[in-house]
């Protein structure tokens, strides 16, 4: 039972990672990051089924933090869009050395 759950979460996580790596659109990358967080949450839940409820407490925390992160991240994306009329990461390289 645990193995199947972990295989599912791993698959979800890898989908998220690949999404982050191959996409250029900030919103999509953002959604992929959320997907990775969800995969991790699922892992916690799966473990808590067998090893106690501490994992579920973590999930609550992760969801809180990701909600806050989503608020800040979306705000940044909107600000960038207002400035540059684009959210394509290829065109945003202000930190280039």
């Amino acid at each position, binding site marked *: 039972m645990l193995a199947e759950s972990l295989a599912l979460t791993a698959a979800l996580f890898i989908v998220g*990672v690949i999404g*982050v*790596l191959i996409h250029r659109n900030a919103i999509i990358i953002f959604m992929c990051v959320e997907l990775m967080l969800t995969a991790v949450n699922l892992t916690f839940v799966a473990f808590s089924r067998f090893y106690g409820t501490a994992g579920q407490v973590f999930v609550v925390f992760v969801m809180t933090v990701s909600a806050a992160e989503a608020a800040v991240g979306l705000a940044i994306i909107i600000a960038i869009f207002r400035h540059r009329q684009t959210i394509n*990461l*290829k065109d*945003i*390289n202000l*930190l280039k*050395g």
Partner: protein
Amino acid sequence: MLLQTALEAASQAAHPLSGTVAEWVWLLPVLPLAGFVINGLLSLNNAHFGPSDPNTAEHHPHPEVLDAAGTHGEEGGSGDDDHAVKRHRWAGVVSIVGPGVLIIAFGLAVAMWQAMAGAHPEAPFVQRYFSWMPVGSLQIDAAFQLDQLSMVMILVITGVGALIHVFSVGYMRDDPGYPRYFSYLNLFVFFMLVLVLGANYPVLFVGWEGVGLCSYLLIGFWFNDKANADAGKKAFIVNRIGDFGLLVAMFMLFANIGVLDFIGVNAKAVELGAGSALVTAICLFMFLGCTGKSAQIPLYIWLPDAMAGPTPVSALIHAATMVTAGVYLIARSAALFSLSPVASLTVAVVGAVTAIFAATIGLKQWDIKKVLAYSTISQLGYMFVGVGVGAYVSGMFHLVTHAFFKALLFLGSGSVIHAMHAAYHRTHSHEDAQDMRNMGGLKRFLPLTCGLMWIATLAISGIPPLSGFFSKDEILGTVFARAHGSTLATASWLGVPGGTLLYIIYGIGLAAAFLTAVYMTRMMLYTFHGPTRTGTEEENYLHEPSWTMTGPLVVLGILTVAGGWLNLPELVTDLIPLGPREVLGHFLDPVVGSATARITAGASHVPAATEEALILTAVVIAVSGILFAVWRLKPAKVPRKRDAVPETGLEGLVANKYYVDEEIDRFIVEPTYKVSRTFLWRIVDNGIIDGLFVNGSAALARAFGWIGSRLQTGNTGEYAWAIVVGVLILLGAFTLR
């Protein structure tokens, strides 16, 4: 620790000097230090730094106030308003404080001497004040030591010093830097007393460096003239070379016997091994320091230039006290030098060569102070011959008598220069006030100075019964005696048997004595006798100085006559009962007696007949030197300075001091400049330090920064790739391990 302190206290209590005035030994240097502070603070108020100050310029409209001779004591008496000089606001206070502290210190020194003469202490009286350098096994205390040797020195320093301070009141009367002058002079006396009172080499070294500093400050006292400032720098730099030697000697002493206080070194010196290479090296390094401070070959070159300072400074620092510090150091380290016949012979050889070398240069100098400067170098050479052959008492004896008669000669020349300068100042003339070619016949105008300087001249020439005769004769006699039987006679120096070498030194000493008589008589003849070359108008203004200047001259004259009584040889007291014999010898015996005994190695005295013959020879040589000078020199035929033609041939060689300064410039100074400019500046400094180190490290940092900045593409996707790849690598590393 407590026990040690208690033991020390017990040993202190047992010392015959504890509880006497000797407990106040700290006050001796503190007095002139207080004088330095007071005069120094006063010099800051209404400050005049040198003759070019606008306040004084209106009173000194003539360039001779800046002449290279650097003589400034003008207007002994009341002058007409044209020449009246505004004295420093605090000159009155300074005139009391400056000499006052020295007179009090001299009184204190005399009281200590009385206490010491009554107590006859065998061991030095050491006063510890605080622990100065407690570093591991190295324990250096700030401590003073009063013994017979330092007693002799402090009497000379404070006594002659007080006289010269009083003389300075008259000589420097109108100088705008009057308080500054006295503050430096007081500071010098402070450091000199620290030098002779220090109970260990580091404390001595503090005084040693301090007197060098004051020498520098006073040589360059009139620093507005570049030549004077250069002379000060030269003295300072040349002395640093010698000080390096003294430092190395101190390091070697500590490395090998682990102590630096005089009592400890005296006790442990034998552990170095008699005649060993180590003790020879220590002594030779120490002697290098002495050649610098006491102006011996090869480091004598600074002393003639040091005459750029005020004449009383030349008398106090560059004749009577500071330059004798080297002689004192060797007498103080007698326990070391007596262990090394080679080092002792080196000291004697260098002293003898310096004595004759400087004496020949003195023959052809025209500047009255230069004659005395070379005379000083020559006489210091005699002292080193004395301490070199282990006649520490004779060396110290000559040090004391030389302090008397050379201070008299210098102050006398100061009196002459003062008169000359005042005369030239009145007539608005630009002639050189120190050149003997501009003098002549001054006997008529300065009879007292002339008479006193003749006494000193006869004394330095070695005419009995003046002080110089006894001390010089004692040194020469001891050299002769050492050649007959001593550890020096049996040693060999660079392959030359010590006995032969000592005879040669004796011969050189006699020759130098002859030359001394010649050049001193020459100086007196050209200065005081024959026709007056100063100028007819100037003759109206030549006069004896005020009592503050003649008074010290008279006292020094008396000392010059009577100084020989300090150490009458047995032969003389047997012949004429003048007084107790060898007072100084008996007095100093607790300090240098054992070292002297080690060198004589039980050899018997020279027979009385030989000794009589030696004394007779010395007197005949001195008299013949004076007569030779009187016979050969024609003061009437000397041209004035402006009419003089430069000497040629051998005379030119001597008159130009054997071109030693020029050779040093050519072989040391110029190559140093060249190497500095081409190699050190362009290659080492510009190329390696600036190029490789400073700019090189900057370029290196920039290169790494450039590489690092290439990694920062600013592309978020690439960062994400980097993170993922990094994580995969880490995971792979952990799992495949």
